[in-house]
Protein backbone atom coordinates (compact mmCIF):
# COMPACT_ATOMS: atom_id res chain seq x y z
CA UNK A 1 0.00 0.00 0.00
CA UNK A 2 1.46 3.31 -1.05
CA UNK A 3 1.29 6.63 0.75
CA UNK A 4 -0.97 9.25 -0.80
CA UNK A 5 1.02 12.27 -1.99
CA UNK A 6 -0.10 15.63 -0.68
CA UNK A 7 -2.29 17.66 -2.95
CA UNK A 8 -0.61 20.31 -5.06
CA UNK A 9 -2.49 23.13 -3.47
CA UNK A 10 -2.32 21.65 0.03
CA UNK A 11 -0.36 23.00 2.96
CA UNK A 12 3.45 22.87 2.45
CA UNK A 13 5.57 20.97 4.90
CA UNK A 14 8.23 22.92 6.75
CA UNK A 15 11.76 22.06 5.48
CA UNK A 16 13.58 19.54 7.59
CA UNK A 17 16.55 21.29 9.23
CA UNK A 18 18.51 18.03 9.38
CA UNK A 19 18.14 17.52 5.63
CA UNK A 20 19.27 21.07 5.01
CA UNK A 21 22.31 20.55 7.21
CA UNK A 22 23.09 17.30 5.44
CA UNK A 23 22.84 18.95 2.03
CA UNK A 24 25.07 21.79 3.17
CA UNK A 25 27.61 19.34 4.54
CA UNK A 26 27.59 17.38 1.28
CA UNK A 27 28.03 20.58 -0.73
CA UNK A 28 30.91 21.62 1.47
CA UNK A 29 32.51 18.20 0.97
CA UNK A 30 32.16 18.55 -2.80
CA UNK A 31 33.70 22.01 -2.75
CA UNK A 32 36.60 20.70 -0.69
CA UNK A 33 37.13 17.82 -3.10
CA UNK A 34 36.92 20.21 -6.04
CA UNK A 35 39.47 22.54 -4.49
CA UNK A 36 41.81 19.64 -3.75
CA UNK A 37 41.49 18.44 -7.33
CA UNK A 38 42.06 21.96 -8.61
CA UNK A 39 45.18 22.31 -6.47
CA UNK A 40 46.56 19.02 -7.75
CA UNK A 41 45.72 19.95 -11.32
CA UNK A 42 47.47 23.31 -10.99
CA UNK A 43 50.55 21.65 -9.50
CA UNK A 44 50.67 19.09 -12.29
CA UNK A 45 50.11 21.79 -14.91
CA UNK A 46 53.03 23.74 -13.49
CA UNK A 47 55.25 20.69 -13.74
CA UNK A 48 54.29 19.93 -17.34
CA UNK A 49 56.61 22.50 -18.99
CA UNK A 50 59.52 21.30 -16.87
CA UNK A 51 58.74 17.70 -17.78
CA UNK A 52 58.53 18.61 -21.47
CA UNK A 53 61.82 20.50 -21.20
CA UNK A 54 63.43 17.48 -19.54
CA UNK A 55 62.15 15.21 -22.27
CA UNK A 56 63.43 17.60 -24.95
CA UNK A 57 66.82 17.80 -23.25
CA UNK A 58 66.86 14.03 -22.85
CA UNK A 59 66.03 13.43 -26.49
CA UNK A 60 68.24 16.11 -28.02
CA UNK A 61 71.69 16.09 -26.44
CA UNK A 62 74.26 18.38 -28.02
CA UNK A 63 76.30 15.37 -29.12
CA UNK A 64 73.56 14.64 -31.67
CA UNK A 65 74.61 17.78 -33.51
CA UNK A 66 77.75 16.01 -34.69
CA UNK A 67 77.15 14.54 -38.13
CA UNK A 68 80.05 12.15 -37.65
CA UNK A 69 78.49 10.73 -34.48
CA UNK A 70 75.11 10.41 -36.21
CA UNK A 71 76.74 8.38 -38.99
CA UNK A 72 78.43 6.09 -36.47
CA UNK A 73 75.23 5.65 -34.52
CA UNK A 74 73.37 4.91 -37.74
CA UNK A 75 75.84 2.17 -38.62
CA UNK A 76 75.63 0.84 -35.09
CA UNK A 77 71.85 0.73 -35.21
CA UNK A 78 71.96 -1.09 -38.54
CA UNK A 79 74.48 -3.63 -37.27
CA UNK A 80 72.50 -4.13 -34.06
CA UNK A 81 69.29 -4.67 -35.99
CA UNK A 82 70.92 -7.31 -38.15
CA UNK A 83 72.40 -8.98 -35.08
CA UNK A 84 69.00 -8.95 -33.40
CA UNK A 85 67.42 -10.51 -36.48
CA UNK A 86 70.01 -13.28 -36.44
CA UNK A 87 69.56 -13.99 -32.73
CA UNK A 88 65.80 -14.03 -33.07
CA UNK A 89 65.90 -16.29 -36.11
CA UNK A 90 68.26 -18.66 -34.34
CA UNK A 91 66.21 -19.04 -31.19
CA UNK A 92 62.79 -18.93 -32.79
CA UNK A 93 63.67 -21.23 -35.65
CA UNK A 94 62.94 -20.01 -39.17
CA UNK A 95 60.53 -22.85 -39.92
CA UNK A 96 58.46 -22.41 -36.83
CA UNK A 97 58.73 -18.68 -36.45
CA UNK A 98 55.11 -18.11 -37.34
CA UNK A 99 53.77 -21.51 -36.52
CA UNK A 100 51.81 -22.29 -33.41
CA UNK A 101 53.78 -23.78 -30.62
CA UNK A 102 53.41 -27.50 -30.63
CA UNK A 103 54.10 -27.80 -26.97
CA UNK A 104 57.80 -27.26 -27.31
CA UNK A 105 58.65 -26.27 -23.76
CA UNK A 106 62.35 -25.88 -24.60
CA UNK A 107 61.50 -23.47 -27.38
CA UNK A 108 59.21 -21.51 -25.07
CA UNK A 109 61.91 -21.34 -22.45
CA UNK A 110 64.37 -20.12 -25.08
CA UNK A 111 61.97 -17.43 -26.22
CA UNK A 112 61.38 -16.27 -22.65
CA UNK A 113 65.10 -16.16 -21.95
CA UNK A 114 65.86 -14.17 -25.07
CA UNK A 115 62.96 -11.82 -24.41
CA UNK A 116 64.05 -11.01 -20.89
CA UNK A 117 67.75 -10.82 -21.72
CA UNK A 118 67.10 -8.83 -24.89
CA UNK A 119 64.91 -6.23 -23.26
CA UNK A 120 67.20 -6.06 -20.23
CA UNK A 121 70.30 -5.53 -22.33
CA UNK A 122 68.46 -2.97 -24.46
CA UNK A 123 67.42 -0.96 -21.42
CA UNK A 124 70.89 -1.03 -19.89
CA UNK A 125 72.59 -0.21 -23.21
CA UNK A 126 70.15 2.63 -23.92
CA UNK A 127 70.80 4.13 -20.48
CA UNK A 128 74.55 3.78 -20.95
CA UNK A 129 74.26 5.36 -24.41
CA UNK A 130 72.39 8.33 -22.98
CA UNK A 131 75.07 8.78 -20.33
CA UNK A 132 77.71 8.43 -23.04
CA UNK A 133 76.08 11.27 -24.96
CA UNK A 134 75.95 13.37 -21.79
CA UNK A 135 79.65 13.11 -20.96
CA UNK A 136 80.53 15.36 -23.90
CA UNK A 137 77.90 17.93 -22.97
CA UNK A 138 79.57 21.00 -21.48
CA UNK A 139 76.63 21.97 -19.28
CA UNK A 140 76.21 18.44 -17.94
CA UNK A 141 79.91 18.02 -17.16
CA UNK A 142 80.01 21.40 -15.42
CA UNK A 143 77.31 20.04 -13.14
CA UNK A 144 79.19 16.78 -12.58
CA UNK A 145 82.87 17.76 -12.23
CA UNK A 146 83.75 14.11 -11.66
CA UNK A 147 83.32 13.57 -15.38
CA UNK A 148 85.68 16.37 -16.42
CA UNK A 149 88.64 14.04 -17.17
CA UNK A 150 86.38 11.93 -19.39
CA UNK A 151 85.17 15.04 -21.17
CA UNK A 152 88.73 16.31 -21.63
CA UNK A 153 89.80 12.93 -22.96
CA UNK A 154 87.09 12.78 -25.60
CA UNK A 155 87.13 16.45 -26.61
CA UNK A 156 90.83 17.14 -26.30
CA UNK A 157 92.20 13.78 -27.34
CA UNK A 158 92.11 14.27 -31.07
CA UNK A 159 91.00 11.82 -33.74
CA UNK A 160 91.87 8.71 -31.72
CA UNK A 161 89.75 9.75 -28.72
CA UNK A 162 86.97 10.81 -31.08
CA UNK A 163 87.18 7.41 -32.77
CA UNK A 164 86.89 5.65 -29.41
CA UNK A 165 83.93 7.83 -28.47
CA UNK A 166 82.12 7.23 -31.75
CA UNK A 167 82.86 3.49 -31.73
CA UNK A 168 81.60 3.15 -28.17
CA UNK A 169 78.42 5.03 -29.04
CA UNK A 170 77.89 2.79 -32.05
CA UNK A 171 78.49 -0.34 -29.95
CA UNK A 172 75.99 0.76 -27.30
CA UNK A 173 73.37 1.55 -29.92
CA UNK A 174 74.06 -1.77 -31.62
CA UNK A 175 73.54 -3.57 -28.31
CA UNK A 176 70.33 -1.70 -27.60
CA UNK A 177 68.97 -2.36 -31.07
CA UNK A 178 69.97 -6.02 -30.99
CA UNK A 179 68.25 -6.38 -27.63
CA UNK A 180 65.07 -4.75 -28.84
CA UNK A 181 64.98 -6.51 -32.19
CA UNK A 182 65.63 -9.93 -30.67
CA UNK A 183 63.90 -9.49 -27.33
CA UNK A 184 60.67 -7.73 -28.19
CA UNK A 185 59.52 -10.13 -30.95
CA UNK A 186 60.67 -13.10 -28.86
CA UNK A 187 58.52 -11.85 -26.00
CA UNK A 188 55.56 -11.21 -28.26
CA UNK A 189 56.02 -14.60 -29.87
CA UNK A 190 56.16 -16.24 -26.48
CA UNK A 191 52.97 -14.49 -25.35
CA UNK A 192 51.26 -15.36 -28.62
CA UNK A 193 52.28 -18.99 -28.41
CA UNK A 194 51.19 -19.21 -24.79
CA UNK A 195 47.78 -17.79 -25.70
CA UNK A 196 47.51 -20.14 -28.63
CA UNK A 197 48.37 -23.09 -26.40
CA UNK A 198 45.74 -22.01 -23.90
CA UNK A 199 43.18 -21.60 -26.64
CA UNK A 200 43.96 -25.04 -27.99
CA UNK A 201 43.47 -26.51 -24.51
CA UNK A 202 40.17 -24.75 -24.04
CA UNK A 203 38.63 -25.26 -27.46
CA UNK A 204 35.94 -27.89 -28.17
CA UNK A 205 37.46 -31.35 -28.17
CA UNK A 206 40.50 -30.19 -26.26
CA UNK A 207 41.76 -31.71 -23.04
CA UNK A 208 40.44 -28.92 -20.81
CA UNK A 209 37.02 -29.12 -22.44
CA UNK A 210 37.06 -32.87 -21.83
CA UNK A 211 37.96 -32.33 -18.20
CA UNK A 212 35.17 -29.75 -17.95
CA UNK A 213 32.73 -32.31 -19.33
CA UNK A 214 33.99 -34.90 -16.87
CA UNK A 215 33.52 -32.43 -14.01
CA UNK A 216 30.00 -31.74 -15.23
CA UNK A 217 29.22 -35.43 -15.37
CA UNK A 218 30.60 -35.84 -11.89
CA UNK A 219 28.35 -33.05 -10.67
CA UNK A 220 25.34 -34.70 -12.27
CA UNK A 221 26.27 -38.04 -10.73
CA UNK A 222 26.73 -36.38 -7.37
CA UNK A 223 23.30 -34.76 -7.64
CA UNK A 224 21.75 -38.11 -8.55
CA UNK A 225 23.39 -39.78 -5.59
CA UNK A 226 22.20 -36.97 -3.33
CA UNK A 227 18.66 -37.45 -4.62
CA UNK A 228 18.85 -41.21 -4.02
CA UNK A 229 20.16 -40.62 -0.55
CA UNK A 230 17.29 -38.25 0.23
CA UNK A 231 14.75 -40.71 -1.12
CA UNK A 232 16.26 -43.46 0.99
CA UNK A 233 16.13 -41.38 4.13
CA UNK A 234 12.53 -40.36 3.47
CA UNK A 235 11.53 -44.01 2.98
CA UNK A 236 13.23 -45.02 6.21
CA UNK A 237 11.38 -42.32 8.13
CA UNK A 238 8.06 -43.37 6.61
CA UNK A 239 8.65 -46.98 7.68
CA UNK A 240 9.42 -46.07 11.23
CA UNK A 241 6.17 -44.04 11.63
CA UNK A 242 3.25 -45.98 13.42
CA UNK A 243 0.36 -47.21 11.20
CA UNK A 244 2.43 -47.53 8.16
CA UNK A 245 1.91 -50.92 6.63
CA UNK A 246 4.49 -53.02 5.11
CA UNK A 247 2.87 -52.21 1.77
CA UNK A 248 4.32 -48.75 2.15
CA UNK A 249 7.75 -50.22 2.74
CA UNK A 250 10.30 -49.24 0.21
CA UNK A 251 11.23 -51.75 -2.35
CA UNK A 252 14.25 -53.88 -1.91
CA UNK A 253 17.40 -52.22 -2.99
CA UNK A 254 18.31 -53.13 -6.54
CA UNK A 255 20.76 -55.82 -7.04
CA UNK A 256 24.08 -54.34 -8.03
CA UNK A 257 24.55 -54.68 -11.71
CA UNK A 258 28.12 -55.49 -11.30
CA UNK A 259 27.22 -58.37 -9.05
CA UNK A 260 24.71 -59.59 -11.58
CA UNK A 261 27.21 -59.25 -14.34
CA UNK A 262 29.84 -61.04 -12.37
CA UNK A 263 27.51 -63.96 -11.40
CA UNK A 264 28.23 -67.15 -13.26
CA UNK A 265 25.64 -68.30 -15.77
Amino acid at each position, binding site marked *: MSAVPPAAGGPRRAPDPNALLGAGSRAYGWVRKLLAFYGTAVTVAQLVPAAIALVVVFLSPTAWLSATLRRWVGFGALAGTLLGFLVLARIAGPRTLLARAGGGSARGKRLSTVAWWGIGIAVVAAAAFRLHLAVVD*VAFVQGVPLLTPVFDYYL*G*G*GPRAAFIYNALAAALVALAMAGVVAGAPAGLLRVRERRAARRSLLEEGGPVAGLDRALEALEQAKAAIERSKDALLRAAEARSEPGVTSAAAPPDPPTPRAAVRRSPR
Partner: protein
Amino acid sequence: MPGPSRLRWRSVVAVGLTSLVFAAASQSPPAEPNGDGSTLQVLQCQVEQALPTPPAEASQGGFHFVFESLGGTAVDGRACTVHRIRNLQGSPPTPVRWSAGSEVLADVVGLPRCTQDDECAWIEVARYFDGDFLGGDTLVSYGLNADSFHEETPALVAFASPDTSTAAASVGTEIVGTVVTLAGVEVAIDLVVRSRLERSEDEVVLVYEVSATDDSQLDGSRITLAWEAFDLLPTGALPAGDDGSTFRSLATGEPVAAGRSGDTVSLRLSAASVVYRDPLALVVLAAGSDEVLMRVPLPAFLPGGG
Protein backbone atom coordinates in the same frame (compact mmCIF):
# COMPACT_ATOMS: atom_id res chain seq x y z
CA MET B 1 80.00 86.74 -24.25
CA PRO B 2 79.82 85.54 -27.92
CA GLY B 3 76.80 86.44 -29.98
CA PRO B 4 74.16 83.95 -31.17
CA SER B 5 75.53 83.70 -34.74
CA ARG B 6 78.98 82.85 -33.42
CA LEU B 7 77.55 80.22 -31.12
CA ARG B 8 75.63 78.68 -34.01
CA TRP B 9 78.80 78.60 -36.07
CA ARG B 10 80.73 76.93 -33.25
CA SER B 11 77.95 74.36 -32.85
CA VAL B 12 78.06 73.53 -36.54
CA VAL B 13 81.83 73.07 -36.39
CA ALA B 14 81.58 70.89 -33.27
CA VAL B 15 78.89 68.69 -34.79
CA GLY B 16 80.87 68.39 -38.02
CA LEU B 17 84.05 67.41 -36.21
CA THR B 18 82.19 64.86 -34.05
CA SER B 19 80.59 63.35 -37.15
CA LEU B 20 83.98 63.10 -38.80
CA VAL B 21 85.42 61.34 -35.76
CA PHE B 22 82.54 58.85 -35.65
CA ALA B 23 82.73 58.26 -39.41
CA ALA B 24 86.47 57.61 -39.16
CA ALA B 25 85.97 55.26 -36.23
CA SER B 26 83.32 53.27 -38.07
CA GLN B 27 85.67 52.55 -40.98
CA SER B 28 87.66 49.32 -40.67
CA PRO B 29 91.33 50.26 -40.74
CA PRO B 30 93.37 48.56 -43.40
CA ALA B 31 95.90 47.61 -40.77
CA GLU B 32 95.58 47.24 -37.06
CA PRO B 33 98.19 49.55 -35.59
CA ASN B 34 100.00 48.86 -32.41
CA GLY B 35 99.82 51.23 -29.52
CA ASP B 36 102.89 53.06 -30.78
CA GLY B 37 101.40 53.55 -34.24
CA SER B 38 103.52 50.89 -35.94
CA THR B 39 101.91 48.14 -38.02
CA LEU B 40 100.94 45.01 -36.14
CA GLN B 41 103.24 42.09 -36.84
CA VAL B 42 102.08 38.57 -36.11
CA LEU B 43 104.86 36.00 -36.48
CA GLN B 44 106.62 37.05 -39.67
CA CYS B 45 103.56 38.73 -41.14
CA GLN B 46 103.08 42.49 -41.10
CA VAL B 47 99.34 42.78 -40.92
CA GLU B 48 97.49 44.92 -43.41
CA GLN B 49 94.01 43.44 -43.19
CA ALA B 50 92.05 41.56 -40.59
CA LEU B 51 88.84 39.63 -41.06
CA PRO B 52 86.58 39.36 -39.16
CA THR B 53 87.20 42.59 -37.29
CA PRO B 54 87.17 42.45 -34.32
CA PRO B 55 87.98 38.74 -33.87
CA ALA B 56 84.77 36.72 -33.99
CA GLU B 57 83.65 34.76 -30.98
CA ALA B 58 82.23 31.27 -31.21
CA SER B 59 80.02 30.43 -28.28
CA GLN B 60 77.68 27.52 -28.80
CA GLY B 61 77.23 24.44 -26.69
CA GLY B 62 79.29 25.83 -23.82
CA PHE B 63 82.42 26.34 -25.95
CA HIS B 64 83.90 29.84 -26.12
CA PHE B 65 86.81 30.86 -28.30
CA VAL B 66 87.79 33.68 -30.64
CA PHE B 67 89.30 33.53 -34.10
CA GLU B 68 90.46 35.87 -36.81
CA SER B 69 92.38 35.88 -40.05
CA LEU B 70 95.06 38.39 -40.89
CA GLY B 71 96.68 39.26 -44.18
CA GLY B 72 99.64 41.34 -45.13
CA THR B 73 103.21 41.27 -46.25
CA ALA B 74 105.84 38.99 -44.83
CA VAL B 75 109.11 40.44 -43.64
CA ASP B 76 110.75 39.05 -46.79
CA GLY B 77 108.28 40.86 -49.03
CA ARG B 78 106.03 37.97 -49.95
CA ALA B 79 102.34 37.79 -49.14
CA CYS B 80 101.22 36.22 -45.92
CA THR B 81 98.10 35.17 -44.10
CA VAL B 82 97.63 34.21 -40.48
CA HIS B 83 94.72 32.24 -39.12
CA ARG B 84 94.62 32.21 -35.39
CA ILE B 85 92.36 30.82 -32.70
CA ARG B 86 92.33 31.39 -28.95
CA ASN B 87 90.32 29.61 -26.30
CA LEU B 88 88.61 31.81 -23.74
CA GLN B 89 88.92 31.57 -20.00
CA GLY B 90 87.01 28.61 -18.56
CA SER B 91 86.14 27.13 -21.92
CA PRO B 92 86.74 23.38 -22.18
CA PRO B 93 89.19 21.70 -24.59
CA THR B 94 87.76 22.36 -28.02
CA PRO B 95 88.41 20.64 -31.34
CA VAL B 96 88.24 23.28 -34.08
CA ARG B 97 88.37 22.97 -37.86
CA TRP B 98 88.53 26.12 -39.95
CA SER B 99 87.98 25.51 -43.62
CA ALA B 100 87.35 27.37 -46.85
CA GLY B 101 85.50 24.99 -49.12
CA SER B 102 87.54 21.82 -49.26
CA GLU B 103 90.72 23.51 -48.06
CA VAL B 104 91.45 23.20 -44.37
CA LEU B 105 92.91 26.47 -43.10
CA ALA B 106 93.62 25.14 -39.61
CA ASP B 107 92.53 21.99 -37.84
CA VAL B 108 93.36 21.96 -34.14
CA VAL B 109 92.42 18.76 -32.36
CA GLY B 110 92.08 20.50 -29.02
CA LEU B 111 92.39 24.09 -27.96
CA PRO B 112 93.80 23.67 -24.45
CA ARG B 113 91.70 24.60 -21.45
CA CYS B 114 92.91 27.77 -19.71
CA THR B 115 91.84 28.82 -16.26
CA GLN B 116 93.11 32.39 -16.46
CA ASP B 117 92.75 34.77 -19.35
CA ASP B 118 96.48 35.42 -19.68
CA GLU B 119 97.05 31.67 -20.12
CA CYS B 120 94.79 31.59 -23.14
CA ALA B 121 97.34 31.98 -25.92
CA TRP B 122 96.69 32.13 -29.63
CA ILE B 123 97.31 29.15 -31.85
CA GLU B 124 98.63 30.76 -35.02
CA VAL B 125 99.10 29.32 -38.47
CA ALA B 126 100.89 31.65 -40.86
CA ARG B 127 101.42 31.06 -44.55
CA TYR B 128 104.14 32.79 -46.58
CA PHE B 129 103.83 32.67 -50.35
CA ASP B 130 104.06 34.47 -53.66
CA GLY B 131 100.56 35.48 -54.60
CA ASP B 132 97.67 37.25 -52.99
CA PHE B 133 94.94 36.75 -50.45
CA LEU B 134 91.25 37.46 -50.73
CA GLY B 135 88.34 37.70 -48.39
CA GLY B 136 85.83 34.89 -48.72
CA ASP B 137 83.32 32.81 -46.86
CA THR B 138 84.79 30.23 -44.52
CA LEU B 139 83.38 27.82 -41.99
CA VAL B 140 84.55 27.30 -38.43
CA SER B 141 83.34 23.95 -37.05
CA TYR B 142 83.92 22.86 -33.48
CA GLY B 143 82.75 20.63 -30.67
CA LEU B 144 82.62 16.84 -30.71
CA ASN B 145 84.32 15.51 -33.86
CA ALA B 146 84.86 19.17 -34.77
CA ASP B 147 81.49 19.19 -36.48
CA SER B 148 78.88 19.75 -33.78
CA PHE B 149 78.64 23.52 -34.14
CA HIS B 150 79.31 25.77 -37.09
CA GLU B 151 80.06 29.44 -37.56
CA GLU B 152 80.11 30.91 -41.04
CA THR B 153 82.54 33.77 -41.14
CA PRO B 154 84.34 35.90 -43.70
CA ALA B 155 88.08 35.35 -43.65
CA LEU B 156 91.20 35.96 -45.70
CA VAL B 157 92.27 33.03 -47.85
CA ALA B 158 95.64 32.65 -49.53
CA PHE B 159 95.93 32.26 -53.29
CA ALA B 160 99.52 31.27 -53.87
CA SER B 161 100.89 31.40 -57.39
CA PRO B 162 104.64 30.96 -57.22
CA ASP B 163 106.67 31.06 -60.41
CA THR B 164 108.35 27.68 -60.77
CA SER B 165 110.63 28.93 -63.53
CA THR B 166 112.54 31.34 -61.35
CA ALA B 167 115.89 30.62 -59.76
CA ALA B 168 114.38 30.31 -56.33
CA ALA B 169 110.87 30.06 -54.93
CA SER B 170 109.45 29.14 -51.60
CA VAL B 171 106.18 28.48 -49.83
CA GLY B 172 106.01 27.94 -46.11
CA THR B 173 103.78 27.57 -43.12
CA GLU B 174 104.62 28.63 -39.61
CA ILE B 175 102.85 27.11 -36.62
CA VAL B 176 102.96 28.60 -33.15
CA GLY B 177 100.82 27.48 -30.25
CA THR B 178 100.16 24.86 -27.65
CA VAL B 179 97.92 21.85 -28.09
CA VAL B 180 97.01 18.99 -25.77
CA THR B 181 97.66 15.32 -26.39
CA LEU B 182 95.42 12.34 -25.66
CA ALA B 183 97.20 11.95 -22.34
CA GLY B 184 96.45 15.55 -21.46
CA VAL B 185 100.03 16.71 -21.96
CA GLU B 186 100.42 20.18 -23.42
CA VAL B 187 102.74 20.32 -26.42
CA ALA B 188 104.19 23.65 -27.44
CA ILE B 189 104.79 24.01 -31.18
CA ASP B 190 106.90 26.73 -32.75
CA LEU B 191 108.30 25.93 -36.16
CA VAL B 192 108.39 26.86 -39.83
CA VAL B 193 108.06 24.26 -42.57
CA ARG B 194 108.98 25.18 -46.11
CA SER B 195 109.07 23.80 -49.60
CA ARG B 196 111.69 25.52 -51.72
CA LEU B 197 113.24 25.16 -55.10
CA GLU B 198 116.78 26.13 -56.08
CA ARG B 199 117.38 26.20 -59.78
CA SER B 200 120.82 25.99 -61.31
CA GLU B 201 121.77 25.76 -64.98
CA ASP B 202 121.42 22.01 -65.27
CA GLU B 203 119.09 20.93 -62.49
CA VAL B 204 116.51 21.91 -59.96
CA VAL B 205 116.85 20.99 -56.31
CA LEU B 206 113.68 20.63 -54.29
CA VAL B 207 114.11 21.30 -50.59
CA TYR B 208 111.67 20.24 -47.90
CA GLU B 209 112.73 21.67 -44.59
CA VAL B 210 111.65 22.52 -41.09
CA SER B 211 113.25 25.12 -38.85
CA ALA B 212 112.81 25.45 -35.11
CA THR B 213 114.86 26.86 -32.31
CA ASP B 214 113.88 24.02 -29.99
CA ASP B 215 115.75 20.78 -30.69
CA SER B 216 112.91 18.60 -29.41
CA GLN B 217 110.84 19.67 -32.41
CA LEU B 218 113.53 18.54 -34.82
CA ASP B 219 114.78 15.26 -33.36
CA GLY B 220 111.40 13.53 -33.30
CA SER B 221 111.29 13.42 -29.52
CA ARG B 222 108.27 15.72 -29.14
CA ILE B 223 106.55 15.87 -32.51
CA THR B 224 106.89 14.54 -36.02
CA LEU B 225 105.62 16.04 -39.25
CA ALA B 226 103.64 14.04 -41.82
CA TRP B 227 103.50 15.88 -45.12
CA GLU B 228 101.18 14.97 -47.94
CA ALA B 229 103.87 16.09 -50.38
CA PHE B 230 106.03 13.07 -49.55
CA ASP B 231 103.28 10.74 -50.81
CA LEU B 232 103.38 12.46 -54.18
CA LEU B 233 107.12 12.04 -54.72
CA PRO B 234 108.29 9.27 -57.09
CA THR B 235 108.61 5.82 -55.57
CA GLY B 236 112.09 5.31 -54.18
CA ALA B 237 112.89 9.01 -54.12
CA LEU B 238 112.42 9.21 -50.37
CA PRO B 239 115.30 7.98 -48.21
CA ALA B 240 114.07 5.79 -45.37
CA GLY B 241 114.51 7.32 -41.96
CA ASP B 242 114.40 6.03 -38.41
CA ASP B 243 112.51 6.78 -35.22
CA GLY B 244 114.43 10.01 -34.79
CA SER B 245 113.33 11.38 -38.14
CA THR B 246 111.28 14.55 -38.14
CA PHE B 247 109.42 13.86 -41.35
CA ARG B 248 106.90 11.10 -42.04
CA SER B 249 104.89 9.99 -45.02
CA LEU B 250 101.27 10.93 -44.36
CA ALA B 251 99.86 7.89 -46.14
CA THR B 252 102.15 5.19 -44.77
CA GLY B 253 103.59 6.79 -41.65
CA GLU B 254 107.05 5.66 -42.72
CA PRO B 255 109.86 7.91 -41.44
CA VAL B 256 111.73 9.96 -44.02
CA ALA B 257 115.42 10.68 -43.55
CA ALA B 258 116.54 14.29 -43.63
CA GLY B 259 119.80 16.07 -42.90
CA ARG B 260 120.30 18.39 -39.97
CA SER B 261 122.07 21.71 -40.28
CA GLY B 262 121.86 24.03 -37.29
CA ASP B 263 118.23 24.65 -36.43
CA THR B 264 117.00 23.28 -39.75
CA VAL B 265 116.26 19.76 -40.88
CA SER B 266 116.00 19.45 -44.64
CA LEU B 267 115.49 16.89 -47.35
CA ARG B 268 116.99 17.75 -50.76
CA LEU B 269 115.92 16.06 -53.98
CA SER B 270 117.03 16.70 -57.52
CA ALA B 271 114.43 17.05 -60.23
CA ALA B 272 114.41 17.77 -63.91
CA SER B 273 111.32 19.91 -63.74
CA VAL B 274 108.98 21.25 -61.12
CA VAL B 275 105.24 21.58 -60.54
CA TYR B 276 103.51 23.41 -57.77
CA ARG B 277 100.77 21.53 -55.88
CA ASP B 278 98.21 23.29 -53.77
CA PRO B 279 96.45 22.43 -51.52
CA LEU B 280 98.43 19.86 -49.61
CA ALA B 281 98.34 19.20 -45.90
CA LEU B 282 100.94 19.01 -43.16
CA VAL B 283 99.96 17.02 -40.11
CA VAL B 284 101.69 17.50 -36.78
CA LEU B 285 101.88 14.23 -34.86
CA ALA B 286 102.80 13.56 -31.25
CA ALA B 287 106.09 11.68 -31.12
CA GLY B 288 105.87 7.96 -30.58
CA SER B 289 102.12 7.64 -30.71
CA ASP B 290 101.39 9.07 -34.15
CA GLU B 291 98.57 10.97 -32.55
CA VAL B 292 97.38 13.85 -34.71
CA LEU B 293 97.75 17.24 -33.04
CA MET B 294 97.19 19.68 -35.88
CA ARG B 295 96.53 19.78 -39.59
CA VAL B 296 97.52 22.85 -41.56
CA PRO B 297 97.80 23.69 -45.25
CA LEU B 298 101.26 23.45 -46.76
CA PRO B 299 101.58 23.29 -50.55
CA ALA B 300 104.79 22.06 -52.09
CA PHE B 301 106.99 22.00 -55.15
CA LEU B 302 107.13 18.52 -56.64
CA PRO B 303 109.07 16.89 -59.44
CA GLY B 304 107.25 16.53 -62.74
CA GLY B 305 105.38 18.48 -65.29
CA GLY B 306 107.97 18.15 -68.03
